[in-house]
């Protein structure tokens, strides 16, 4: 049963890569949804606290009355609940396990290493943090070759679970490149990922929801400023 007449909402924020995953997945399935932007500085909404009482975090997908939490779980839910749309997970169990493995790796190891670049104090610390990110990207470049089998995306001809899981971080990756004045994705080291990133961001399911890098960079400065107790820069 498609439940196509049932209301779909996404609770989140334009800047969150995790929220972006849910939106891209819904776009792939051509599902209409209402996007509810959480207020950034005034505390979490009642709806968020009610829908995700355990973690109180975004994204939350609300399908009818049912809340679904945790971005990778949400994407899998979207794939399974709207089963007649284009598939997001591969159909082969081994390929599914591989896509899920790299998605978990991204969340548990790679994204934290990228966040460390922003926080690192001093040149040596920054260099070390960047080296870690690049190590991860080298693994992902290899994974891309295996998963894509010569096609444009990790998912093959169409964007799939791992494209969404990784691609959602591209905005922040570009901000990190800008702030650290380093190219993390490059023709020299990660040619396949560089080309993939461009195709991903231009994809119809992605381009209208991927946050603008400049806007993200400004937002990142605002967060840092608040964190350090200064007044946020005028927007």
């Amino acid at each position, binding site marked *: 049963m498609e439940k196509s007449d049932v209301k779909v909402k996404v609770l989140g924020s334009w800047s969150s890569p995790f929220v972006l995953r849910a939106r891209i997945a819904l776009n792939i399935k051509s599902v209409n949804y209402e996007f509810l932007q959480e207020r950034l500085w005034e505390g979490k909404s009642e709806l968020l606290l009610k829908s995700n009482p355990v973690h109180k975090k975004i994204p939350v997908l609300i*399908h009818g009355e049912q809340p679904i939490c945790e971005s990778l*779980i949400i994407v899998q839910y979207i794939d399974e*609940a709207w089963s007649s749309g284009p598939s997001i997970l591969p159909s082969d169990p*081994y390929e599914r*396990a591989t896509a899920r*493995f790299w998605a978990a790796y991204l969340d548990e190891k790679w994204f934290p290493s990228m966040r460390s670049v922003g926080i690192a104090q001093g040149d040596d610390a920054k260099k070390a943090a960047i080296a870690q990110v690049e190590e991860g990207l080298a693994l992902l470049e290899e994974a891309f070759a295996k998963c894509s089998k010569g096609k444009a995306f990790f998912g093959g001809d169409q964007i799939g679970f791992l494209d969404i899981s990784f691609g959602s971080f591209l905005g922040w990756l570009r901000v990190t490149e800008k702030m650290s004045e380093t190219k993390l994705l490059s023709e020299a080291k990660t040619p396949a990922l560089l080309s993939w990133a461009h195709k991903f961001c231009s994809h119809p399911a992605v381009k209208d929801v991927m946050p603008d890098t400049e806007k993200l960079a400004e937002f990142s400065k605002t967060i840092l400023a608040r964190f350090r107790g200064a007044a946020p820069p005028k927007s």
Partner: protein
Amino acid sequence: MANEKVKLHGFWVSPFANRVKWALKLKGIEYEYMEEDVWNKSNLLIQLNPVYKKVPVLVHNGKVILESFLILEYIDETWNQNPLLLPQDPSQRALTRFWAKFAEEKIFEAAFNALCSHGDEQKKAVQLTMEAMEKIEGELKGKQQFFGGESIGYLDIILGWISYMLPVFEEVGSVQILDPVKFPATIAWSNRFLNHPVIKDTLPPKEKMLVYFQERRHIISCANLGWIKF
């Protein structure tokens, strides 16, 4: 799927590897077991799992599958005979995956820390473990035999360590977590789980576990390393 080569690389006391054993046995899948010494890793293990260098590793007809959660889903999808480990309904599947992730992040981590720490840090770890377990206790209320219903499912397997390993942590750490007043449903579930024919014959010997975790606690306390997972 008969006569296909299935190999599980595990470590005798690893609760993560045990999950895979349970899943394979529940489905009646024949497999070869390879014991790995995680404290002296073989070249083969490092080759199979270069990113994390951990067990369990499932090798099925040459394909390598890593991470216990993912191996369970792989097993369920590849051998889709009964018992099905995950529910069929998408929202039930999402909830199952949600609680599995929650339990791993909030219960196991905190319980292991309770095992290895002392004083205030240990008190805090016990408190965090119990707070997280209250959520699982809530989920068990009104359930039949198991999280999976009449038969053991994915979430039972993921949480199964609570039944046989958490009491060991409690004894070694000299703490009480499984309070029968606070967790009656969890304890009842735990007893049913332990008595299941597939489970009770695949548990590491309690005495051996006690010695192992005593040593872990001692080493970690001496080195003051805080969080270390095997």
